[in-house]
């Protein structure tokens, strides 16, 4: 392992200054659950680590106002177990509690989780150029296209990359119209979460719109009654400690027995956390039955494209989303 320097910052300002001063080899570290893994795989080789886990007030969880606010360094475990989140926003709580393991959730932060990198096996095993990967080595090609693509994306893939965005929490936040607070050299800015992720297109190594020295200082979710009619359904290769084959984040604003605004996002199937607008439009004004739910879910996958081994994700995705819609709808009764 490469020798590196390590400093612990007390405020975001300090951290940014330290980052800028450290130059090219600088990386922020919070829980470290993804960064250490990537370092061991040779994907990340930082020379300077700036620890932002203990920034002043960065682990704040505030559910009192008209929005839910989570500091970037709030722990996944703590947000999942927050009484308001786990009672009124099950989609958020479940997206956290079904991720990783309790040990990892006790370390990992909700801000860092937004920036988790893909589990594509070719990306992870590409040290020394073993496998071509446009994410690791731009222009080297993509071994997953035409390779073992069972876990790869069916939505949002490009000719350069079909790696899946791995997270659960970002999918739930996408459904709930979250905004992300970023602090950089020139102050703070707020963006919708949908603008945080770049589609792979021809530059799959550029995954986020966040600036190199910017820090995720907070995540805000507008309060909505839809949170009570919500669910995060995750289907995977085992019952726990696995990434999603397919996941569906659903929250429903109901108008009597009809759907008003549906909030629907998909995970495990797309190159970025995937908002399913077509399904939302289909559901508006409808009563929820099995047939309608399946039709809405099928609409969500209308643009899906299968590779060699992942066609099942389209069918499984539609069924999973339909199940999630029915479950969320049943909570309003």
């Amino acid at each position: 392992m490469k020798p590196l320097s390590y400093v612990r910052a007390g405020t975001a300002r300090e951290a940014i200054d330290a980052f800028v001063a450290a130059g090219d080899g600088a990386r922020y570290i919070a829980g470290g659950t993804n960064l250490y893994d990537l370092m061991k795989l040779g994907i990340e080789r930082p020379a300077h680590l700036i620890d932002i886990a203990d920034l002043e007030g960065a682990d704040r969880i505030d559910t009192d106002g008209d929005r839910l606010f989570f500091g970037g360094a709030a722990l996944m475990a703590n947000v999942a177990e927050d009484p308001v989140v786990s009672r009124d926003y099950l989609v958020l709580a479940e997206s956290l509690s079904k991720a990783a393991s309790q040990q990892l959730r006790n370390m990992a932060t909700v801000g860092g989780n937004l920036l988790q990198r893909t589990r594509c096996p070719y990306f992870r095993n590409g040290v020394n150029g073993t496998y071509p990967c446009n994410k690791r080595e731009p222009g080297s090609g993509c071994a997953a296209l035409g390779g073992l693509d069972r876990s790869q994306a069916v939505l949002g893939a490009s000719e350069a990359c079909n790696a899946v965005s791995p997270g659960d929490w970002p999918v739930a936040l996408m459904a709930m119209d979250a905004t992300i607070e970023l602090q950089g050299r020139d102050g703070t800015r707020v963006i919708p979460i949908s603008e945080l992720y770049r589609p792979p297109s021809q530059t799959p190594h550029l995954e986020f719109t966040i600036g190199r020295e910017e820090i995720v200082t907070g995540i805000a979710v507008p309060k909505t009654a839809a949170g009570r009619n919500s669910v995060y359904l995750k289907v995977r290769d085992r019952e726990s400690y696995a990434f999603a084959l397919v996941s569906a984040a659903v929250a429903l604003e109901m108008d009597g027995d009809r759907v008003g605004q549906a909030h629907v996002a998909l995970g495990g199937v797309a190159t970025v956390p995937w908002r399913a607008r077509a399904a939302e439009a289909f559901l508006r004004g409808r009563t929820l039955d099995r047939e309608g739910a399946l039709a809405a879910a099928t609409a969500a996958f209308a643009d899906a494209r299968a590779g060699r081994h992942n066609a099942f994700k389209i069918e499984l995705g539609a069924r999973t989303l339909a199940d999630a819609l029915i479950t969320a709808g049943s909570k309003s009764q």
Partner: protein
Amino acid sequence: MTPSRNADRPRIDAHEKVLGRALYAADQPFPGLLHAMTVPATIAKGQILSIDTAAAVAVPGVVRVFTHGDFAQIRTTPAARGAYGQPGKGYQPMIGPQVRHRGEPVALVVAETLEAAVEGAEAVTVRYAEEPFSAEMDDSLATPEPEPVSQQASGDAEAAFANAAHIVDVEYRHPQQHHNPIELISTTAAFEDGTLRIYEGTQSAAAFAGGLAGMMGMEPQALRGVSPYTGGGFGQKNGVQEQSVLVASAALLLRRPVKLVMPRGQLFHTASYRPHSRHRVRLAADGDGRLLAGIYETVQQNSRYDGFASDHGANPPRLYGYGAWLGRERIVRVDTQTPGHQRAPHEHPASYATECAIDELAGALGMDPVALRLANDTQRDPLTGKPFSSRHLAACLTRGAALFGWDRWTSEPGALVAANGDRIGLGVACGSYKAAMTPSVTTLRLSANGQCRIATSGHEMGQGLRSVIAAELIEVLGVDPGKLDIRIGDTGHAPQHLTAGSWGAGSAAPAARAAALKLREELAQLTGAALTDEPVHAQLARTRRPFLEVSVDTLPLGKDRQAIEQLRRGMPVVTGPEYPDFLAFSWIAHFAEVHVEPSTRRVRVRRVVSVADCGRVMNRRTAESQVRGGVVWGIGAALRETAESDPRFGGVLNNDLAEYVVPVNADIGAIDVDFIDEPDNRLNISGVKGLGEVAMVGAAAAIVNAVHHATGKRIRHLPIRIEDLL
């Protein structure tokens, strides 16, 4: 005295392990210890053109970078890499410029710290000339062996099959699997008392004397092998590893102790694994369900250079009273590291294929699959005509069926529906595993203060072997479990035989019992009267002797004194399943209940009931634990585990515990275990047959059969995944 049934009793080393005091091989502290890290080959096959070590040598803390130029003196013999004399396991990386499989070590960096060793290893650059390769048994460069490696025949199976009223003809595929014991494979080479000691969490401490010493041009007695504990072996730690001689040689050349803990990602490419296999099963029956014939043909993946035998055909013909049998096994050579034994190495894949085929035959006959199995029960081996030493398989089936509630079974798949809409499937399958034994040289010393020390052959790999030895000493001598000192896995204390193949308990229990009985006998001679029920050490104390020590050589049934000499030389001496007058097997019946979610088709194994006939149960607690572990392995095999390999590159892509999917706690429902617990006194004085392997045999088939019963879908490959059932 005759062996008694054993009560539930805590594991003898439970406290030591739970408190973290048990020092495993890589935990041994040595002053001046150096750390090593390997550089894995990044091609699948070819030649090394050059190795640039300059950057690695420049890393602060790096002591030396070894390449194949440093190790050309390492001798390889057919015995070199295996557990002692196993023929053909001859390939040793880093003694020449060739690369035979992706991930094999091409350089070894030794440094003052682990961090420096890792950084040094990352700094080594290697140029290769690549060659075409085959990483899969189905591709065009794979090389099938022209002749079958083994055959079994009895009667005219082809004719019986051709004329039968009811047949099945099916092919099942088994994937490549990796053992993944939690304790990583490590080697520590250190100098103590002027000799080289090798610490590995191995199942075969004597493999160092028998194999490693020869590779290094040393006399066997110049090496002491120590395996303090094995943190799960499952067959992956049954011999000299690819790294063992490299670390030992580095220590000799540097005159300092060296330790290498192989990272898990590399173990997928250096350690053994269960190879791919294909199984064609043809079964024939008459209208009453009598099995007229079985024809069983298998093809197994192998590496280019070794002789890892295929042995799928040994067990299936012995499970039922087949009228005629034909078995034939073939192998296909590919460019990977050598496959090897993995828990129930051939018995698990074979039982998977044949026990699913039996289920298919039951369907073709319209018979209850339990009834079909009971109708074909036999007390004689169809191949040799000899009786079995003991066989309570029918009792396993009937008791298991009662415990499980098999009366819920319906002939129509998909008919059982849970309250939440899940489809319920019930499945059954049987298994067997040979009852084998090995020789031992045992020294037992009882002190008048109650201390009791035994040194014998065996390796503690979590299966509870120390508890088995303790059970016999407690029963025969009445010793206090807290005053027992059980020395196994160390060639410095007693000759060591490879512990594998479910012969651990069947070898160590009789050895301990024989020693304890001899001690009683000698004490009775000392006291001049028959011993009383009082603890033996108290009776010893009255003779005013501080201790009494006995030595016993234990010969397994059918072997002569030569076995002890072979044991002392580190040669394998294994008996079974065929003995002069009978065949000996352990038996098991598994019953599985799965629930399949109707929409997403997720499969959950709600309950498994397993009833085993392993002879006398030595410790109810560790025995139940063995069976639960075996069933969990069966669940993993049926629904979870497979190595993902891209044929364009070779190697294993899912080479960590996150991506190589084994079951987690949330995947495991109830596992209810029961035992027949009838001693097999024809086999040995302890009445023990063996349990660790048979526990898994048939478990996967029971689950696959239950999935069929729930869904009506017959999936003939493993693992069954969600896409197979959508």
